[in-house]
């Protein structure tokens, strides 16, 4: 079950992400969990602490105590910033000191709707055509897809670090790090 999107929206988003980063010999965005990364951002405040900043110092993938899954608590101003960014300013004066802010939730809801209720059933060429006609929205989803794909798995994407292994990237490496030899040699 998605956290914030409706089932329908989640389906459309999954199809979009898979067009942006399609599978080839390694998994694409859908299988890597990118839609969960985006849904997790849109619904970050349904968790306590909100899923904005993963914890430190280590993930546990290369030793040390796993801490990434323990998300940081937000200070009051951090919460104001992230709620505004996600939910929009919603007419509240404390969020509109420099004007109205359109939130990510609204941009996703409208963008996904604008792609059409039949988006998932269209052939790939038609899907790409619609994505190109909504360039600003597509760019937003693509930027988030890159984050979800190649960011830490604790944020919901890059499931089992599948995108990192697909490109030969080790990901977070503390506290193991790299030896001097690994740094200086080919």
């Amino acid at each position: 079950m998605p956290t914030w999107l409706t089932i329908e929206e989640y389906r459309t988003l999954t199809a979009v992400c898979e067009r942006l980063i399609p599978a080839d010999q390694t998994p694409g965005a859908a299988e890597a969990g990118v839609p969960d990364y985006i849904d997790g951002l849109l619904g970050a405040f349904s968790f306590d602490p909100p899923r904005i900043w993963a914890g430190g110092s280590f993930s546990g993938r290369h030793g040390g105590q796993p801490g990434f899954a323990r998300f940081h608590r937000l200070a009051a101003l951090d919460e104001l910033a992230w709620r505004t960014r996600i939910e929009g300013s919603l007419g509240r004066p404390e969020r509109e000191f420099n004007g109205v802010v359109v939130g990510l939730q609204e941009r996703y809801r409208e963008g996904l709707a604008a792609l059409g209720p039949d988006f998932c059933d269209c052939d790939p060429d038609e899907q790409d055509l619609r994505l190109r006609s909504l360039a600003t929205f597509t760019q937003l989803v693509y930027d988030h897809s890159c984050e979800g794909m190649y960011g830490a798995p604790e944020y919901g994407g890059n499931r089992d670090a599948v995108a990192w292994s697909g490109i030969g990237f080790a990901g977070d490496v503390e506290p193991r790090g790299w030896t001097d030899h690994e740094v200086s040699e080919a």
Partner: protein
Amino acid sequence: MDRPRGIGGVTVDAIIVGSGPGGSTVADILTAAGWSVVIFEKGRNHLIDLEHPHRLADDFSNDEIKFTNRHFLGPDPFLEPRTFRTGPEDGDHSFVGDVNSIPSTVGGGGTHADGKVPRFREEDFGLLSTYGPQPGASVADWPLTYADLEPFYANVERRIGVSGDAAANPLAAWRSGPYPMPPGPSMYGAVLSTAAAETLGYHPYPAPGATNSVPYDGRPPCNNCGFCAFFGCPIHAKGDPVAMLQRALMTGNAEIRPETFVSRIRTDGRRATGVGFIGPDGVERSMDARYVVVAGGAVETPRLLLLSGFDHPLIGRHLMVHFQTIAAGGFADLRFHAERGRAVTHLHDDAVVPDDASRKAATQAGLPWMRGGIVEHGGPGLPILEAKLYRWGPTHKENMRRSPLRDRLWAFTMQGEDLPVATNRIDLDPTVRDVRGFPVARYTYKPHQHELAASAHHGPRMAAILEAMGAEWTSVATSPGSVEGPGGRASVDAPMSRHVMGTVRMGEDPATSVADSNGCLHQLSNVVIADSSVFVTSSGYGPTLTLAALAARFATAMVS
């Protein structure tokens, strides 16, 4: 534990605004001399436990989402935007958002710099007497010399913990002793690029680094995790400036107040009496002090002076930001694995020192002289940043696997000297506010002809090194953005370099400078400016070690 006595209306010895490298250096020296100090920091604390025994925090991590996409170290551009314009012809501003901001957090920009901390050269303190004036710029000598500052350079290299090789750079200024630590390992790409640079007659050397190469001050050596520039160090192997803050706290004479914005310096007309501040509860309060040290960085420091109603006409003027020239080259047969190590381990200084070719280029551009800046070998190699550069669709994953723009790319970045120009400035934006309701800092900035000509001269030379390394293609770009040749018009984007300087100029004459050679405001002698705001000229070197050395000099003058 003893607490500084500013709380409850009793005067503390010094209030320090900002906990970056400048403020931390001052705190270290004042507390060691027994002064009571309160450090106000508007950002959050992710660095160090504020309670005894001041254990280093475990908030930093190898996490590209948190640090480079979600503003973990601040400033959040929604809460604290800045604005930019090239000149009044752009109207009030042409851009609102993140204008080359440096972290706003306990430790300031020191926490996520990858810490290349070279010293300036001798002539950097006397450009006017060495090379003479430049039309359209306010070139001047500093009110102090390299020799005056050398003991403080040596002092802060020990405080911060700097690794380097004193014999490696033939173009470096003289020094009274070795570096506290030997250099760390060379990036693989830098092994290749330094060899190529040497064949062309350049003098690359291991960058002096504010990163431990051996255990130092109770902190471990760097283990090359690769998430360095833009990230806090998970194992606290960066010395800049955590060591100084921890030491200051351990004396019991210092208190750090995070999430607390200093909105105004209070005065009685002749002297500063303290500050007004707004803490996490949003309530405005005040605190008295004998001295107010301002170390908010070269953008926020003049902003605070202007918010306080100080009226010296030069406050905010002579803003300097290193002019970046970036040469990149593609190598189909190499993989640089820049995700291992500290990204930039080598520099060369040849573009800083004029030679026959650059003198000729200056003459052709109609300039009396011309200087570039340090050339950094390489840069970080992280995948989210890379992924966003490629087109979406079926080619995306093949690009990520082949990695032409990360793993098979090597780059040089020149941090070009930016001349001081009076119309380049920070002032208060007329309409945009921060979350607390205060006007934000506005940049008005365009490069001088000097920077454009120096970039046009040195860019192809950096590309030639890439060709000598075997690059299949090279390209040269600049920040601020693409600019036309001599006489051309500067583009409208804000500069990217985080080396910002010069907005509270230092000098002997109150008519041509705002602060004196001890960092004290001419108008209010117990207000001390301890950051790169006081720089008279920008040199072509990263500002951090020099601003820390100045802060050490100013603090030493305060306690003696």
